[in-house]
């Protein structure tokens, strides 16, 4: 019975059925399955399959995002259960992410955020056109390991530099790794402004984040 529920959760993640994932997770909780077991033996194996299928070219971005969304919704159900047991999921790290002030582009940043969440990071997505001081405050509040800054325009990429300067002024620059992304951005720009890393796509960003916190 329990095995069947866990397998069902895995399958629902792989097949991109978030409603089913949530429903089965709820059933598992009711059946007194340990929350960590649901995560480690139900949700995570599903995400691993989805990740592998994406890498091999069989799956595409919609599969990835829907699977991540199913995972996230299930986690929302599980968080109170974990708290009640005074347990916590082992996180890969904490990430604050957003598009910088003046930049309203959403897709790239959301994609990276969703995929990081699916890869075990605690992700705080601040949205678009995020004020520099908001980034700094959130990093302080969450004690974030990684700050992800997205800029799609040549006119807004300079804000990435301003945020790094603001972190220095706040005295927390060495507590957080800053990674940058966006169409006009490249490794050279990352070096120029003293960012800790750059990736040109979401998969690259995950690799980078894992390296930086590893």
């Amino acid at each position, binding site marked *: 019975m329990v095995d069947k529920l866990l397998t069902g959760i895995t399958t629902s993640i792989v097949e*991109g059925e*978030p409603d089913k994932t949530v429903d089965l997770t709820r059933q598992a909780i009711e059946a007194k399955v340990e929350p960590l077991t649901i995560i480690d033996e139900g949700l995570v194996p599903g995400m691993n399959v989805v990740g592998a299928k994406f890498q091999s*070219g069989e799956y*595409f*971005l*919609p*599969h990835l*995002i*829907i699977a991540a*969304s199913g995972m996230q919704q299930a986690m929302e159900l599980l968080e109170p259960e974990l708290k009640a047991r005074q347990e916590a999921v082992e996180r890969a790290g904490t990430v604050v992410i957003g598009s910088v002030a003046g930049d309203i582009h*959403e*897709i790239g940043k*959301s*994609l990276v955020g*969703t995929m990081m969440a699916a890869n075990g990071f605690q992700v705080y997505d601040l949205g678009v056109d995020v004020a520099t001081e908001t980034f700094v405050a959130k990093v302080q509040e969450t004690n974030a390991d990684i700050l992800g800054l997205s800029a799609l325009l040549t006119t807004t990429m300079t804000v990435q530099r301003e945020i790094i300067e603001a972190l220095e002024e706040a005295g927390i620059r060495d507590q957080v790794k800053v990674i940058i992304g966006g169409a006009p951005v*490249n*490794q050279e720009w990352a070096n120029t402004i003293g960012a800790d890393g750059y990736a*040109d*796509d979401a998969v*690259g960003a995950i690799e980078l984040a894992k390296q930086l916190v590893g």
Partner: protein
Amino acid sequence: MRPKMNILSEELVDQIIAEGFELLMDPGVRVHNEEALRLLADAGARVDMETQIAYIPESIVRQALKTRPSEFYLYNLDGDPVVHYGGDSVQFDPGSAAITILDSETQEQRKPVTEDFVKFVKLVETIPQLDAQSTAMICADVPEEIGDLYRLYLALNYMRKPIITGAFRKDTWWTMKDMLVAMVGSEEALAAKPIAVFDVCPSPPLLWSDLTCQNMIDCARYRIPSELVSMPLAGATAPVTLAGAVVQHTAECLSGVTICQLAQEGAPIVWGGSPAAFDMREGTTPMGAVGTWMIDCAYTQVGKALGMPTHAYLGMSDAKIVDAQCGLESSGGTLMAALAGVNMVSGAGMMDFESCQSYEKLVIDAEIIGMAKRLVAGIERRDDPIALTLMRKLGHRADYLAQPHTLKWFNKELYIPSAVIDRGSMEGWKRKGAKTTWERAQDRVAELLATYEPSPISGELRGELHDIATTAARKFGMDELPPLPQD
């Protein structure tokens, strides 16, 4: 709605057909085949046995147009109807009878041998965009006299998809027919579920050679589909006006349909061709010329007006290497053929006019074909209302990537190419080795070949095919066929 291109006005179609009929009476059609002349004479045509010219009245042709099938299917080895000749179905097979192969290592042309063609057949099997095989190259390691049947023999050992083929001699046709019969078990089974089509090529202007005419008659008698490949060369062997070249094509095809139906009423036959707009600078027959594409599309429209299944040699290039010219010419012809609704488009992989085949070009062309098929699938109303429900649900959120609606439809709405087409970022492209189209095509060829699954035919059947082909080879001084490559 399926996007459809008509290149001729209805009035022009009518006049082209009317003039086609008139040409069959004056100057008439040269028919260098006695059996065909007899069939025509018996049907009431005036035949001059000395000059071998037949003057065919419209009434006989009209009768043939009543008995020819307007559609038929080709079957794969599992017996499934996988190619539909008729209506506006659009399907693709590789260009056929190449005399050279573009070497994957040196990028230079050389004579193909057994191993090359076997690799090609396997590759075609694995390319999802291709609907049929073709006897795509002529192997130089067997006597010329068995060049036609040998390539069919090889293909039959490795294929599942149906095949477009053709004979170079009168006697070898029978060997090829015997092999096809062996594949499906009986002549009746072959007629009921054909797995092959034979190209039959009149010579411009208005000539049926003995060989090709006999092939067509023999196909008709066994109800094996034949495909007319009329090839007016506008400005050289046909009028330079494009409409004039189509008139010549019409007359040649009408005479072909007539001879075919006189040999066997109801035999399947296809309105096809390989015309070209003569190159007035080089004196060549360009496949990448817009004039060539226009003649093809125009005769296709004429064929459809007469209710015929259609075929064209399109999607080829005159380039000598796989370069920008190669891509642009192949794209142009392929997209035009798809929009014209040509039932079978032969040409993928072909370059240097119609002389050279390339594995790499084949997998690049497969992407062009994928795009062309997507294009003619058209834009449909998937939901009703089209977007209101979804857009109101999301409001001003740009969250479409996370919607089940996107997951449901993206693969049907968007054509997703293989890695032959690079759509990564600059950095991503560099990380993967900064590869050119040619290099990515080489990777794709290797990737696809690794997925080839052996043909399901029995060892006994393989032996039978081998015996039939060997018997033919021995007539031309080859005691043993080259061995089949070991996997």
